[in-house]
Structure formats: structure tokens, C-alpha cells
């Protein structure tokens, strides 16, 4: 008996095309080491240990008086804030007339395993702020903290409110118990003392594992299918490779810092309860009394909105704004939405206070 095949010939066509794209890929894409992630021109104005303070060159004739320092996260590198001209957070703010500095935490090695919260908050970040104040002849600066850099910047702002004119918290890690992400679940069950005692710094491989369990099928399969389907689209491929290179470049986290991080934020949740100590001083969120802008991504699967939002309600400031955006953790800082909505809103808020 003859049975008629119902399979659409287009399926075969698609499979063959996909196969051809996979074969052609090595000829069409650059090797990761050929891609430079440095986009907007900048100068290194201070170096302490492995950290660097970057000062971006202005793109406008006139600039706002108060400079802005960005405290980037401890996971991956600062390049995502300047990943490509059309999606660059830094470039957008420069074009809005802001004077931008970025703190690059560098790549700690085994000998940095004793660096702790105090070193990052009262050492590197405080030194960067002092340098900017001197260079720009201002008494106060604007400070933005992103993700884990937001936690460090929050601690800094409570301890040195006299140096911060405006504070911007972008998806900060604040309330560990309310965090509903997979990362928080893994962190809560981690024997961090044993980890730091045995291997010293938190290795990048562990972070890669954590990334791999976040939407594993979307990120591990669909993303690459899309890549091969768009292999002829130069712009898409370039953007994809830049983000992939950024994702694959995460430095280790110093052991002592990581230990305090996991215990004080995720396991004991001390920060939001105003019980966390840094360098022997209590972090009291009520001391954040300057204008504060909190940015949250509704679809954030790295730092859930419930983890960041409590900051807005815990601080002492009367001039505070909370904005929520329909995007993810990276989408908030490096997407067309961030260019069209997030950055114009931030720029308007900041220019009125700079």
C-alpha cells in the first residue's frame, strides 16, 4: 500500500541550509582573540594593584559638572557597558554630556585571596572616588553600581555619604533571602569556608557552571541555532561574538570577599537588615540620604527584582526613584531598550541633579 509522505520539502531545504551555515561558519566568523572589546576611547588614570580607573574621553563640548563613576560587577568584565557603539551604556551617557569614569576590578590571582569587602569598598572604590574628586575639582561625585558592583557601591555610599551626590543602583544584589534565582539557591547550600580554605579564590569555572544552569536550553541550544541561522548577517554575528567573548571572560573572585559575600548576603542576609559590617563599620542603609535612582529588570534571572527592590524602601533618602523595565539583567544595560528607554530616563534624572 502506498502511503503519501506529508513532510514539507521546505524542512529538507532548511536542514541543508543550516548544515551549510555550520560548515561555512569558520570562514565567516572571527576568532575570539581577533575581537577587541575596547570600544569607546578612554585613558587609565589610576592603577592600584590589579584595579584600573578608566576615564572616558568626552564626546560633547560641554559636560555636566558632577562626574559619574561606574562600579561594575565582580562577575565578567566591564566591557558589557561598552560592548558596541549602538548599545554602549558609556557612549550614550557621554553623548548626554556626562563625564564618565569606570572602575575595572582587574583579574585577581592566588596572592589576592585575602582581599575582602573592606579592600574593595574602603580601598579601591574610595581611592577611585578621591582621584576623581581631585581631578575634577568637585567635592562629590555621582556613583552607579551594577549587579554585585551595586552591593559594593551601596556599602560605599553608606560609609562615605559625604562623597556621593547621586546614587544609581542598577540591579543591585541586596536582599539575598528574597532572591528567587538559581544562583541564590546554590549559594545558600554552599560550604564557602571549605571552598575558600581549599582553593583560595572562587574560580571562573564555578561561575561558568552557574551560568550554564540559567535557562540551559534557551542559552545552550536556541542561542546557537539562532547564531548559525544568521551566519550571513555580519552585524548579528559581530554582536553575538562580542557578547560570547564577554561571557567567557570572568575573573576569579578573591576568596575572602567571596566568603563574606555568600555568608552576609545570601546565607545570613545581613545587608538588608542593617547588620553587615565592612572594615569594622556597620552598613546602615538609612545613611543613603542623597538622591537615589534604583533600576530593576523585571525578567532578571541573575538578580531577581525581589532581591534588588528592597533597597528603594530601606534607604533614608527622600528623593528616590524606582524604575522597572521589561527586560533582563544584561538587556537593561546593553540593548536597544536600554538605549531608547533606560538611559534617556537615567540621563534626565541625573542631569537635573548634576
Amino acid at each position, binding site marked *: 500500500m502506498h502511503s503519501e509522505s506529508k513532510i*514539507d520539502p521546505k524542512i529538507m531545504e532548511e536542514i541543508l541550509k543550516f548544515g551549510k551555515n555550520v560548515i561555512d561558519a569558520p570562514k565567516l566568523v572571527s576568532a575570539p582573540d581577533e575581537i577587541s572589546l575596547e570600544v569607546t576611547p578612554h585613558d587609565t588614570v589610576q592603577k*592600584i594593584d590589579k584595579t584600573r580607573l578608566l576615564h572616558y574621553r568626552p564626546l560633547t563640548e560641554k559636560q555636566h559638572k558632577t562626574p559619574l563613576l561606574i562600579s561594575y560587577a565582580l562577575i565578567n568584565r566591564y566591557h558589557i557597558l561598552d560592548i558596541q557603539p549602538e548599545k554602549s551604556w558609556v557612549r550614550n551617557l557621554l553623548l548626554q554630556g556626562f563625564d564618565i569614569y569606570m572602575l575595572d576590578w582587574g583579574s585577581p590571582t592566588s596572592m589576592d585571596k585575602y582581599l575582602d569587602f573592606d579592600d574593595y569598598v574602603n580601598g579601591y572604590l574610595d581611592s577611585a572616588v*578621591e582621584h576623581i574628586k581631585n581631578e575634577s575639582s568637585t567635592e562629590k561625585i555621582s556613583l552607579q553600581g551594577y549587579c554585585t558592583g551595586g552591593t559594593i557601591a551601596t556599602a560605599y555610599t553608606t560609609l562615605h555619604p559625604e562623597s556621593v551626590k547621586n546614587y544609581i543602583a542598577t540591579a543591585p544584589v541586596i536582599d539575598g533571602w528574597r532572591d528567587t534565582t538559581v544562583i541564590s539557591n546554590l549559594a545558600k547550600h554552599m560550604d564557602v569556608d571549605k571552598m575558600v580554605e581549599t582553593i583560595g579564590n572562587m574560580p571562573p569555572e564555578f561561575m561558568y557552571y552557574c551560568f550554564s544552569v540559567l535557562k540551559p536550553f534557551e542559552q545552550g541550544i536556541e542561542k546557537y541555532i539562532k547564531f548559525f541561522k544568521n551566519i550571513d548577517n555580519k552585524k548579528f554575528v559581530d554582536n553575538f561574538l562580542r557578547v560570547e567573548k564577554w561571557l567567557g571572560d570572568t575573573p576569579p573572585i578573591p576568596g575572602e570577599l567571596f566568603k563574606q559575600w555568600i555568608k552576609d548576603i545570601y546565607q545570613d542576609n545581613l545587608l538588608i537588615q542593617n547588620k553587615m559590617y565592612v572594615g569594622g563599620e556597620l552598613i546602615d542603609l538609612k545613611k543613603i540620604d542623597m538622591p537615589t535612582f534604583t533600576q530593576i529588570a523585571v525578567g532578571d534571572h541573575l538578580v531577581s527584582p525581589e532581591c534588588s527592590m528592597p533597597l528603594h524602601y530601606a534607604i533614608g533618602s527622600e528623593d528616590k526613584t524606582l524604575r522597572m523595565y521589561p527586560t533582563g539583567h544584561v538587556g537593561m544595560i546593553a540593548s536597544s531598550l536600554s538605549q531608547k528607554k533606560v538611559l534617556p530616563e537615567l540621563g534626565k534624572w541625573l542631569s537635573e541633579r548634576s
Partner: protein
Amino acid sequence: MHLMSSKPQALTSTGPMRAFTANSKKVTTELIEINEDLIGFNQYLTEYYKQLADAWGVAQKKVNLKSPEVPQNVEQIEAFKRIWIDMFDNDFTELFDSKKFGENYGKLVSKELELTKHWNNITNVVLQSVNLPSKEEIDEVYKELHSLKKRIGKLELKLKKKETRKNA
């Protein structure tokens, strides 16, 4: 004659092999403990893969229920793929978010660290046998260095702030 015959003895009493032999008992103890920890590690690893396999089975059943027909064209394949990815992402995220996964994964990592610790201890025996500093000794140097750098850094910053205030 006496010097000639005693020299090799003196050599072995200071040489690396003697130092290694003196500590070989420690190596044996570490190896026995490695075996014990390996059993625990394998138990947690088996549970880890079991949890993944179970989640896969449940997610696949859900996909089959939601999309029982074999896709016949490009649009249907695309829709099927979307359902498959969403179902699997949801079910696996639920697993990774669960207490049972978190606890087992924590124990698995902890056992792996125990194994690393034994390996470090064995390496220390070898290092000491050739008169090289152990991990603990190097850590002490790092700690001292960190403390000194911290003190210098804070003093420098204090001076800088004083200077700024003076110039203001």
C-alpha cells in the same frame, strides 16, 4: 675510610628521599581517606545525574502531551521547538531552584573539595621533601603581604585626603 662510609649516610639523612620516607605514612593515610571520600562523592554524583535524568523524563512527557503530533512543516517544527525549549527550561529551572538539588549539589562540591584537600596534603609532603614551602606557608606570606599592602594603602589614602582638604 670512616669519612667515605659515613658520607652517603649523611646524605640520605638530609636528602629528599629521607624527608619523603619520613612522611610517607601521611601519604598513605591521605590515599585511604581519598578512597573513602570518593565513595561519598560518587553517591552525590549519581544523585546529581539521577535528578537531571528524572527532570528530563518529566519534561519530555509534558512536551509529548502538549504536542502529540509529529510536526509536518517548518512552522510546526518551529512551534514544537519553542514548546520543547520552554518546557525543558521551566522544569530544569524548577529543579535547580529546589532544596533537594541545592543540598545535593552543595554536598557534591563539598566532597570534591575534600578530595582536593587530600591532594593538597599529598603535594605538601612532596614539597617539603624537596625543601619547598607548603601551601600553608605560602598562604601565610600572602596574608602578611595583604595586611601590609592594606595598611600602606589606607595610610596613602589618608594622606591624599588630608592633602585635598589642605588644597581646598
